[in-house]
């Protein structure tokens, strides 16, 4: 039987206090999904209003953050995402198992210098640009895992995809992000690339020393 009463004041207060706790992270995620301030605000408002209208479906005591992020990403996918255009970028060999080894060679070489990580010098603008350049399916899992720190299981639930797909998207998304970050680092002179595209850390060190 459906309860025909309106949301009570108590429900409203409970809902608002939960939403207030998560509004910053919802906005941060929305901004990276839409890449536009106005769209991000609209997306958050849409998701919050929708969550409010379905708040009776939320099981008290379960993970509110995961629940409202599911509504946010759903709203985004249904309303904001240009399905055809963005989809074609992503659905490649995604179904193949995660068999690639560790980290990309460039990033591994860079990481070999524990004092100065190649990322240390990067400015936030470049980090934002690198994230925003990721194809949307990878961007979503990287944001959910590395910014919002959701578990694989939670991400699988939020995006309604299998855990294996989360893992492969996360793996590929992270490698693409590292590559992009490295490109920005190279551009700003913190690392140098050889003619074959690999990284010449020594050259960059020599240049920094002079």
């Amino acid at each position, binding site marked *: 039987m*459906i*309860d*025909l009463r*309106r949301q009570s004041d108590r429900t409203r207060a409970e*809902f*608002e206090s939960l*939403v*207030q706790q998560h*509004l*910053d*992270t*919802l*906005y*941060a995620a929305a*901004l*990276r999904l839409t890449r536009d301030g106005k769209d991000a*605000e*609209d997306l*958050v*408002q849409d998701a*919050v*209003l*929708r*969550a*409010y*209208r*379905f708040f009776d*479906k939320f099981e008290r005591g379960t993970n509110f953050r995961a*629940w409202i992020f*599911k*509504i946010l990403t*759903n709203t985004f996918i249904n*309303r904001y995402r240009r399905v055809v255009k963005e989809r074609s970028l992503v659905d490649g060999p995604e179904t193949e*198992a*995660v*068999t690639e*080894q*560790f*980290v990309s060679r460039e*990033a*591994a070489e860079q*990481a070999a210098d524990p004092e100065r*990580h190649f*990322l240390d010098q990067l400015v*936030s*603008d470049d*980090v*934002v640009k690198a*994230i925003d350049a990721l194809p949307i399916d990878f961007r979503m899992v990287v944001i959910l*895992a*590395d*910014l919002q720190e959701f*578990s*694989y299981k939670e991400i699988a639930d939020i995006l*309604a995809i299998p855990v294996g797909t989360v*893992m492969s998207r996360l*793996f590929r998304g*992270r490698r693409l992000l*590292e590559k992009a*970050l490295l490109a920005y680092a190279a551009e700003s002179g913190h690392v140098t690339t050889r003619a074959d595209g690999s990284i010449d850390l020594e050259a960059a060190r020599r240049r920094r020393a002079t």
Partner: protein
Amino acid sequence: MTLDPFRPAMDCAEIGRSAEALLDGEFDDRERAEAEAHLSACDRCRGAVEKLARTRTAVREKLRAAMGPSSPHGRAPAALRARIAEALDRDRLPWWRRALAPLPLAAAAACAAGAMLVLWTHGKADSLAEETAAWHSRDLPLDVTTASLGPDSVARWFRGKVDFNTRPPEFRRAGVKLLGGRVSSIRDRPCAYMRYELPPSADGAQKPHGPLGLFILDDPQHRFGEAGREVRVGPETVRLLNARGYNVAVWRKNEIVYSLVSDMDEPSLERLVEAALSAQR
């Protein structure tokens, strides 16, 4: 993972495949113990996992600095907090009516948030009434307000933003006040959206009504043919429909289509449209 004493210990290939899951804290105790046993014995894997961990930590720190709560990208603007609180205040129409109206009860009862959203968008091609009611219910902020522009300038403000003249019906005599406008989009085409406030007791209802939403769009190809109950108002044919818990009045003037969305009951909406259209003549 089951406890199997005969299961071979994790090998290099397995560590290589699952290093990210290990670092992401996805291993259970037994898996972690196995991985640690391998890493303490295998320099190659240990070195690789350490490098991976350093990169992972560095990337996460960068992400936090660039878009975490201490950065401007990671903080909801104060205006957003305010407008969400306002939207919740205005969400007066019983939430269950809007939420459940377009769905059979069985589907509505069964659905979690996700399933509901999918049904909403993929259930069927929406009619104009459906689309405009859905857009109106989002209660998005206005681009321009009567308070800032004056009541006569809102329609003019749309010039250049939509490629037709927006001539809203004359609601003023009915005591209906223009609040402002926003460019909306219906089926990927820009259209004019105006929001109105009803006088306190338009139909003698106890609860105050939510705002009216008026959509004006051009439709030279007659993409929007509406069903619904037909009412003649002078030379105009107005169709009255119910969509998503709202009552919607749709009428056409040559290539321009109007859709008026309201939470008033149908007779009240009909009277209002009649008053507005006859005031225009």
